[in-house]
């Protein structure tokens, strides 16, 4: 029944957005909605028996287990910060004429719908229903990318829809395979994850392999795994930065979540021996392609977007190693990446408002005098960059360290290749930051750059996220460990 509370909160927010005429009120509705989701999720985690017994519609379509709640918690925290950030960001889009006043309602309505569909997706027990929700997230987020109605935004959105949706059709064929397998084995067909998990060990390996391969195509496209990553940098770079943060920090997780769920099923069949190396291969290719795309990159948002591709590859490698410890740190890495990446996009957004390329987002950024003009964003990029490359004190450090350690137990050469690629990525980020941030106009010469006054609503979420990153990196409570261990147990790794 508690699921209804989520739906009601979203509907209330939608109603407020539909009725209100000012930007401030619509934004407030989004912030309150996201905050409510955070509160609800924390409440369930603390005071309810997890997994929550779901309400029934014919058969079990929804359920709430620890993994789903965890993903919703990460998503809603990011959404809350991004909604606050959007307040200032959208205001500046409006005043520069990049966003029409008329599209405002559509923007906030799809924003709210997106959070609702995401929550439903993470709470789906039925995999086909999860597929539908994942499809809807693609559509709604593409709408948010296209909202600026500049030609390149529409191009990026259409590319995103076509690649993601066409690949998701393959996933659906995979699900049909899974359904047919369960019908052969169990008598009645089911796509409920809990039921499939119970009987997975008797599934024939050939069918499991075919089903997983097809499902993987779709969710890989959604999470930007090579060779389906081509939509990602464009959509992330061209979307308004508040949306980029969501795309990168939340929507990529949907794909990984799908892969994790279905892999948990086939992991129990003999097919796992064939699938794990394949996953690792795709992971390595993804990290590799990201590393060498980042090296010559001159556009900050694209650079950050490629770093997301890299992290998804790393997560995939962790899943492929599939020891309990590796999965534990993969789960941690999902959160660490989301928080860090959102903060990076927030900083990049401020810099983008300051130095917006005059011709197109395709062009190089012309960053100069950054410490004089936007000190907070500059430090945000530096701290976020250090965090995402995995420096100690930041959460990514631990997850990377332990995923690498587990990988080293499986294969030492693979570990060294990955280390080399990670080094390339770190140097690409470092090179960009040093060369862009050290550009200074000589004293005495007149600079024609007008300082952009960053509104407080864009600064607060950035500071908040950086604080959260440092806290998650330094503090590691007993409860947190127990919680992650429970998820690993639920996934039966």
């Amino acid at each position: 029944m508690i699921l209804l509370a989520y739906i009601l909160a979203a509907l209330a927010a939608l109603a407020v957005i539909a009725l209100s005429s000012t930007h401030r009120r619509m934004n407030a509705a989004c912030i309150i909605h996201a905050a409510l989701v955070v509160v609800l999720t924390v409440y369930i985690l603390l005071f309810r028996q997890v997994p929550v017994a779901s309400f029934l519609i014919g058969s079990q379509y929804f359920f709430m287990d620890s993994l789903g709640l965890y993903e919703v918690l990460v998503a809603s925290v990011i959404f809350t910060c991004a909604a606050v950030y959007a307040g200032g960001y959208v205001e500046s889009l409006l005043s520069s004429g990049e966003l029409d006043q008329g599209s405002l309602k559509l923007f906030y309505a799809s924003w709210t719908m997106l959070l609702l569909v995401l929550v439903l997706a993470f709470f789906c027990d039925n995999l086909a229903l999860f597929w539908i929700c994942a499809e809807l997230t693609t559509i709604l987020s593409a709408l948010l990318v296209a909202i600026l109605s500049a030609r390149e935004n529409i191009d990026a959105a259409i590319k995103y829809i076509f690649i993601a949706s066409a690949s998701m059709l393959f996933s659906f064929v995979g699900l049909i395979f899974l359904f047919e397998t369960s019908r052969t084995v169990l008598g009645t067909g089911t796509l409920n994850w809990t039921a499939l998990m119970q009987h997975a060990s008797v599934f024939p390996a050939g069918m499991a392999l075919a089903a997983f391969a097809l499902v993987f195509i779709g969710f890989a496209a959604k999470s930007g795994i090579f060779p389906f990553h081509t939509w990602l940098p464009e959509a992330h770079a061209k979307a308004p930065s508040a949306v980029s943060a969501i795309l990168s920090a939340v929507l990529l997780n949907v794909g990984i979540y799908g892969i994790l769920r279905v892999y948990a099923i086939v992991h129990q069949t003999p097919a796992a021996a064939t699938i794990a190396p394949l996953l690792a291969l795709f992971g390595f290719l993804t990290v590799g392609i990201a590393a060498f795309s980042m090296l010559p990159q001159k556009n900050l948002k694209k650079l950050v977007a490629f770093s997301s591709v890299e992290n998804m590859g790393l997560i995939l490698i962790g899943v492929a190693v599939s020891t309990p410890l590796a999965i534990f740190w993969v789960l941690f890495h999902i959160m660490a990446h989301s928080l860090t990446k959102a903060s990076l996009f927030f900083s990049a957004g401020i810099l983008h408002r300051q130095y917006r390329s005059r011709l197109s987002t395709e062009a190089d950024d012309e960053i100069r005098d950054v410490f004089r003009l936007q000190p907070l964003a500059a430090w945000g990029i530096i701290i976020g960059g250090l965090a995402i490359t995995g420096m100690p004190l930041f959460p990514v450090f631990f997850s990377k360290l332990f995923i690498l350690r587990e990988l080293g137990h499986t294969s030492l050469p693979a570990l060294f290749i990955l280390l080399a690629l990670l080094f390339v990525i770190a140097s690409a980020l470092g090179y960009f930051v040093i060369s862009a941030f050290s550009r200074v106009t000589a004293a005495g010469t007149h600079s024609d750059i007008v300082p952009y006054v960053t509104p407080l609503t864009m600064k607060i979420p950035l500071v908040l996220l950086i604080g959260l990153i440092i806290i998650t990196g330094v503090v590691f409570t007993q409860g947190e460990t127990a919680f992650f261990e429970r998820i690993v147990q639920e996934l039966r790794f």
Partner: protein
Amino acid sequence: MIDAALVQGIIRILLVCVIITAAYIISTRNLLSLVSMYSLQSVTLVCLALALWALESSPVLLAIAAVSLVSKAIVIPYFIATIQEKIRIRRDIEFHFLSPTTSLLLSMALMLVVYMVLARVLRNSPVRENLFFFGAVIGISLMLMGMMVMLSRKRAITKVLGFLSMENGVLLFGMFVTELPFIIEFLIIIDLIILVLLTTILTVGIDSTLEDYHKRLHRFRLVGGTEEQP
């Protein structure tokens, strides 16, 4: 009850018809006939669902037939045709990567590959009956042919048609291999309609916002250069 052998014969003929429509969608350059061919393909699918219903008499198939008829044979084609009127494109003669002839040859090769792979994968499932296996192969082939349309066409609106015919392939495959709960099928159709609406509207955007876009660019420069409020 109608003779089962006759129905099976009809199903075979209909399956061949589906492939012919798919081949036509790959090769034609006329946009209007592309839409009507998609509509025809959907009608063929509806007939297939009805024929299967005559064989198996499961009510889900009847529901699928009804929903597909309304959405895919009438609403979506009508909507796309209206959009086409608006953006005034009649022909799509640009192809990249693949010319129609190569795509046709390629799809024939793909069908063979699909046949061989499915024969191996479905070895142990009850779908070994010849007719159902044939349907599954055609379904996957239709999907791959739709994907080829998406790859080889340049205009977004023809890509939408490619996507739709991919989806038809998935539906066909689902119909022949197994039967999913109706609510799922229904939700998928809704999802599809939203997707088509959005992509076609965006396609219009690509062609119509160009001037608007240049105006905006102009304003950018003003804002960036002097401190002028828009």
